[in-house]
């Protein structure tokens, strides 16, 4: 088992996971009031927090439509994310992205694609540029994708090229069991995506994606390995998409038994219990943390809602460089 994080690191992980959760749930509430629906990462917070903490400033992240966790873990401001989701000028992309393809170059979160597999097509090129000296020296690239993307042909093309060209690329598969409205067991002939990655010759770790400490430890090992070898590595994080493909989604197609099993293994619940057991926080501290986070998200939402709409005459700005 990996070493326990110190108190500061542990509390930071809990807080970041809770911030992601609060952000996502605030948008769910907003959606009920008519705001655009989002693809939430509720249930997958440990994957984002564990991996992103293992990266540093010279590294790049390529993400997908379920990106809020990656962005917030990387330090994105919820208020600017919310402004983006609401289509306002203060969003990271000036309101042109909405929730689905938010990039924040200033944070090293580049080229987010909402096309399932699009992130896998671009990540090797970002890693190639790093390798050819265009990024910060020693930087690597982490690409987040799901089991759905692993069923795209581009998955195999990307893995093959990353191995062939020895690209500094960390593949992070958040296996959340759902591919839009279809369970992955209906779509995959293999039960583990990691087996496909092994077939391409990648070093692979498969682990519980709801255990943030385990995710972080595995990610740190993979990142160190990539920095040392220059070549790619692969993580398969077993997790669960607790909410629908997007909001609203009644999840009528979800087996209630499976969902409740995974809810018992909710990453934030698991981690809160661990920190309570370690004596790093008590129930009063947990409640106070939640209040602080909720207040921050409420302020972020107020900021976003006060942000201006883009001027219609800017419609065709940024089509061409």
């Amino acid at each position, binding site marked *: 088992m990996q070493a326990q994080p110190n108190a500061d690191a542990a509390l930071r992980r809990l807080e970041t996971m809770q911030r992601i959760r609060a952000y996502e749930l605030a948008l769910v509430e907003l959606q009920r009031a008519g705001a655009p629906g989002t693809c939430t990462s509720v249930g997958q917070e440990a994957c984002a927090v564990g991996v992103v903490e293992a990266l540093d400033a010279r590294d*790049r992240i*390529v993400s997908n439509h379920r990106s809020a966790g990656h962005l917030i873990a990387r330090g994105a401001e919820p208020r600017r994310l919310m402004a983006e989701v609401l289509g306002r000028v203060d*969003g*990271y*992309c*000036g*309101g*042109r*992205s909405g929730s689905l*393809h938010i*990039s*924040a*170059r200033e944070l090293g979160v*580049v*080229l*987010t*694609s909402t*096309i399932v*597999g*699009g992130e*896998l*097509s*671009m*990540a*090797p*090129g*970002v*890693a*190639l*540029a*790093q390798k*050819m000296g*265009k*990024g910060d020296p020693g930087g690597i690239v982490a690409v987040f994708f799901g089991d759905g993307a692993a069923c795209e*042909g*581009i998955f195999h*093309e*990307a893995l*093959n*090229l990353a191995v*062939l*060209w020895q690209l500094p690329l960390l593949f992070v598969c958040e296996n959340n069991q759902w591919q839009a409205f279809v369970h992955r067991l209906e779509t995959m002939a293999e039960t583990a995506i990691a087996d496909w990655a092994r077939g391409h010759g990648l070093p692979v770790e498969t682990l519980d994606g709801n255990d943030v400490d385990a995710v972080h430890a595995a990610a740190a090992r993979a990142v160190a390995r990539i920095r040392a070898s220059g070549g790619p590595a692969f993580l398969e994080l077993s997790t669960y998409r607790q909410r629908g493909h997007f909001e609203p989604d009644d999840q009528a197609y979800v087996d209630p038994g499976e969902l409740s099993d995974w809810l018992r293994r909710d990453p934030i619940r698991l981690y809160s219990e661990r920190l309570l057991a370690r004596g790093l926080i008590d129930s009063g501290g947990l409640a106070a943390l939640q209040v602080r986070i909720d207040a921050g998200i409420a302020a972020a939402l107020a900021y976003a809602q006060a942000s201006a709409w883009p001027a219609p005459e800017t419609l065709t*700005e*940024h*089509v*061409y*460089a």
Partner: protein
Amino acid sequence: MTAHSAIPKMIRMTAEQAMHQALREEFQRDADVMLMGEGVATKRRDLLDDFGAARVRNTPLAEAIIAGTAVGAAASGLRPVIDLLFAPFMTYAMDALVNSAGKLRYLSGGQFRFPLVAIGMTGGGWGVGGQHNHNLEAMFVHAPGLKVVMPATPADFKGLLKAAIRDDNPVLFFADIGLLHEEGDVPVQDDFIVPIGRAAVRRGGEDVTLVAYAKTVNVCMRAAAQLAAEGIAAEVIDLRSLKPLDADSVLNSVRKTGRLIIVHEASGLCGIAAELAALAATHAYANLRAPIMRLTGPDAPAAASWVLEQAAIPTAEAVARAARELVEFMPEPVGLWSSTAKTSLGNPVTKEETTLA
């Protein structure tokens, strides 16, 4: 050209050689330029030898990841050129080119730029059939964020490829198979560029405007020569760039001649000719003295059989015939519409619309 102006040094070479020279010069000029594709390091061994394996990369036969990698690399500071071989193979690369390169600058609010060039061969000439020969350039014209060029002369193959490599946007470079081995004079100075978005008037004339690109430029030049012998002065415009489209050059010519024929090998439905016809009808209506005509390939896959492949390409004879019809065209008196007096020009789906007339 006056005696004291700088006379560019010209060398006679094929379009294919001109493209190679463009690549070599841009590799020399800018260390960020790189080349990826199936066989690029094999076929362009001199570039591999001179510029190294990091910049000249053979790839798997996997167009989606070639293009996706180019998109990621372009956004990260490199200037990749990808050779996707035959244009229909680009359909495998559509996500990277259309959804990523074309849209992620806009969707990110201008955070990224994508200086990449995707090269694909197309057009009749080698009898390769519809999965290697498909003039699908208009598909990419329809995709926001992309530029599209398709040269007709060896000099333009060189100058447009160099301009495409230097452009900060994704550029689709379509190489007409039928032109690759044609020779022409090509300027050899390093700074020779053909600006993207500017058409060329290949021949001046006052009676009818013939607009074409790629191999149909030559078709129109031959038609213009035939027409000249009959006393009809045709102006021939080579578009060179399909996006951005040099509408002004076409409209200025149409305002002068009052007659417009657009000729291309790609199919007509929602194509370049349709767009130019709409532009002329919108912006030069008062100058038009006859209906606008399109001569295009049919809405059918390219056949391998030489006869069928060539039958899909507009001929100089058909262009000349169309020009004569337009010059002789007399408008119907208002209110006296007569079907017997109408020519085929009145029907938007007549056989004259395609080369199968």
